[in-house]
């Protein structure tokens, strides 16, 4: 099973994933990245803290970014209006 790394992009910093995790296919890793973003946004919302979160880069063992999941990718299944709002912005 390939190992994927989830590097987190904030507006002002990048958090490297030192461990990685195994997934069957990239699609499953992307879903994990989206679920993680939702969890982090939810935590920030509940705590009433401003979030600087922007995206998660899913990378392979060699450090190449395979896919970038942003907040819109992560929240679109939940808030169908996010892309509409984003396009207005």
């Amino acid at each position, binding site marked *: 099973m390939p190992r994927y790394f989830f590097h*987190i992009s904030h507006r002002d*910093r990048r958090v490297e994933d*030192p*461990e990685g*995790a195994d997934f069957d296919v990239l699609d499953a890793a992307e879903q994990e990245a989206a679920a*993680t973003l939702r*969890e982090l946004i939810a935590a920030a919302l509940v*705590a009433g803290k401003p979030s600087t979160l922007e995206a998660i880069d899913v990378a392979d063992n060699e450090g190449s970014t395979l896919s970038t999941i942003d907040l819109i990718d992560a929240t679109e299944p939940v808030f169908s209006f996010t892309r509409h709002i984003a396009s207005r912005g």
Partner: protein
Amino acid sequence: MNAVKVTQGQVNNRLLRLLPEEAFRLLAPHLEPIDLPVKRSLVQAREPIEHVCFIENGLASMVAESSDGKSIEIRHIGFEGVAGYPVVLGVDQTPNKTFMQVSGAGIRIATDDFLPVLENHAARQLLLRYVHTCELQLAHTALAAAKYNMHQRLARWLLMCHDRLDGNDLPLTHEFLALMLGVRRSGVTDELHVLEGLHAIKATRGNVHILNRIMLIEIAGGCYGVPEEEYERLIGGDLQVTSQR
């Protein structure tokens, strides 16, 4: 069976140290020092608890699993406790499993050789009080899960690990911390980075170095400390390793 004779003065486990001398003498011939490598199983789910194991050092985790495969850590057991403690309550097995999260050592004893010690009043009281502190730890885990945010819960868990491990280096993976907190692994990575920014910890691969314990207690808010105070009050023997503070 055991070649090494275990004496009460040399053990590190708080419960063994605090047993009345006559109770310890009863156990002594059956006590078996063992190495506890990481992932070593101490209690298997739904299997007879054949041994109890007093942890000398290292960290064991008790984990609850749902019928559809979700799991969360419900208990830390270090040198303040004993794995397999449900036998004290008269049960033969449990759906929860216990295994080592940080390698160490322990002193184990077959359940059949251990149970007679409960006939000693003071020993029984000590062990029942320990089980009560386990219940308190679980109660406060529930409180933390429901009423505190991840940032605070992570600080609590790090403090609980720090209480039980020697020194300031906690050999914990993000995957383990995620299991403890019931969150996704990357969420732990992100929160550790925040704690690093505050200079409370220094995280490297597979290790969390505690830089500022007082700050972690402040970050945890009220979700750390009550079970620890009760352990001190009811059992004593210094839950926190004094050498590291």
